């Protein structure tokens, strides 16, 4: 009983319920197409690709920031790789690390600007989103005089990043699992995880407690830059070309996945496991719609509603979590009316 209660108070519980709900929903309305392996592969691939960005972005958001530049960084990483290997015919051993390095570098720049100027990361990464997009367009046009660069992807790279595991299940799923393990390890088990929570909880207090706020912030933006570039390169490996306008949709997709995954928009709370559920929920809704025979536009409506419900649920669960552990009184409290002190508490938060 008390175990069950503790379970429902974990940050990922609501996200899990959301995933279960949309899964059952599409199993019912998309029966029997939705449960076919190819359809499963379809949404799992979408989840895996989005997950490469959503997981590192979730750390950024738990630390109380936003990253709107993931789409432009994705394009920058993909283009760097494509131009080096496809246009200049240089080996992948140069192109691949260069693509990842470019993504990481622009993440670094985001972090540096946010920490140095103390501007809101929303604005900084918005500027990065537009600025970098322009830069990628300009440089690509100047060097290749096109906006789409085809690549004869190296066999090893194609098989590792763009390959299939089984049927149409992509290797990106493996990358996703690896990133998920790393991100969870950092957040749950290392001291850096503690710093990230503290940073999102109250930056001033974190600083006072000796957390190197600048370094952590920069590191997190580098992480989301790396994840974005990794997805960019993965897509080049999958499709054999890079496009300057690629990736912009991931900006909002990643935020939806993270918030539906139970991360508070204000930071300080959330879990990678929840974000994995959030990502899967997103993927199921966006792909499952095709098994229902309905117009695919309806998936946007469902996602919008889910997002709204998620934000409301997050607030409720947070309040539940804050009242947890009060073993002697929690039973009585849940039946009696909320005390004035609790109300005050809730309002202040």
């Amino acid at each position, binding site marked *: 009983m008390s175990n069950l209660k503790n379970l429902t108070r974990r940050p990922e519980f609501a996200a899990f319920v959301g995933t279960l709900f949309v899964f059952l929903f599409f199993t019912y309305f998309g029966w029997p197409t939705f449960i076919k392996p190819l359809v499963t592969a379809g949404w799992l691939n979408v989840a895996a690709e989005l997950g490469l960005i959503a997981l590192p972005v979730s750390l950024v958001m738990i630390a109380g920031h936003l990253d709107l530049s993931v789409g432009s960084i994705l394009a920058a990483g993909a283009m760097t790789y494509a131009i080096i290997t496809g246009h200049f015919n240089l080996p992948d051993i140069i192109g691949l690390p260069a693509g990842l390095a470019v993504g990481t570098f622009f993440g670094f720049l985001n972090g540096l600007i946010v920490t140095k100027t103390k501007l809101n990361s929303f604005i900084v990464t918005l500027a990065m989103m537009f600025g970098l997009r322009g830069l990628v367009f300009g440089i690509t046009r100047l060097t290749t005089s096109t906006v789409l660069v085809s690549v004869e992807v190296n066999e090893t790279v194609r098989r590792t990043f763009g390959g299939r595991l089984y049927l149409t299940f992509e290797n990106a799923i493996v990358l996703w699992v690896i990133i998920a393990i790393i991100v969870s390890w950092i957040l749950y*088990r*290392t*001291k850096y*995880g*503690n*710093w990230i*929570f*503290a940073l999102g*909880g*109250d930056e*001033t*207090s*974190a*600083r*006072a*407690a*000796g*957390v*190197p706020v600048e370094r952590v912030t920069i590191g997190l933006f580098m992480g989301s830059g790396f994840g974005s570039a990794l997805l960019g390169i993965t897509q080049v490996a999958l499709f054999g070309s890079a496009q300057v306008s690629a990736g912009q949709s991931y900006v909002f997709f990643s935020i939806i996945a993270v918030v539906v995954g139970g991360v*508070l928009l204000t930071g*300080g*709370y959330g879990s990678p496991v929840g974000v994995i559920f959030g990502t899967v929920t997103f993927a199921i809704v966006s792909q499952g719609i095709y098994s229902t025979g309905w117009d695919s536009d309806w998936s946007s409506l469902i996602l919008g509603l889910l997002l709204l419900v998620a934000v409301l649920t997050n607030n409720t669960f*947070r309040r539940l*979590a*804050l*009242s*947890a*552990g*009060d073993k002697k009184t929690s039973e009585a409290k849940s039946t009696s009316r909320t005390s004035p002190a609790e109300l005050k*508490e809730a309002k202040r*938060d």
Partner: protein
Amino acid sequence: MTEKRIPYISIENVTKVFGGYVALNEVSLEIHQGEVLCLLGDNGAGKSTLIKVLSGFHQPSSGIIRIEGREQPIRSPRDAADLGISTVHQFGGTFPLMTLERSFFVGREPTKGWGPFEVFDSKTAGEIVVREMQAMGITRVTDGKRLVGSLSGGERQVSAIARAVYFGAKVMILDEPTAALGVKEAAHVLRIVMEAKRRGLAVVLVTHNVTHAMTVGDHFAVLIHGAKAADFRRGEKTREEITDLMAGGEAMAELEAELESYRSSHDGHPPQR
């Protein structure tokens, strides 16, 4: 005899200007170990600013800071921590959505393992935090996995103080620790302040509450518009004088004159509430 001791921190003629606005004006102060210094003053008097200078958040625009007599700038909160200065900021100091054991050790995590497998030692952290909280009289806390936000305001303050004491702070700065607390909780926090003082810490306590200040203070400094208006020791001034100073003098005198005229026009009855 206290006059001859070298203060742990002394600040001399510290001024802090924010874009033309003088928030601190030539303030000098001595902070001694084993004493409670109460920093008093009206809203906006510069108390928090002074504290932020001491804890490395702000650099003074001019003036010097000495630690044990030696000139020593405090350039960052990290610097302050290394000098044993621990601050619990106004409205802050704790992370409501973190577990107690995580929050207690932010920035000083106990770890085990090596390299990339160096992990946060949750078991040790939990044991220590429960032990330290119990030692501070918060017996209700038996599980380090509790969220800080599920503690009461007073318990949170106590956990922040317990943290400072546990990590060997020499100076503990508390910005209005009793402001949001009920009578009982405030009393508990004040008891902890006395306990910290007994252990030889220097305590700087910012408060609006004259009673709280007079209960624990050994030494008092009053700021008015960023300047030090008074500096006195326990017993040198009456409660009325202190209240008067805190309100900036004139305001209180005005209020009294008003009451007086009210009484004389209402046959000596005080105004009804």
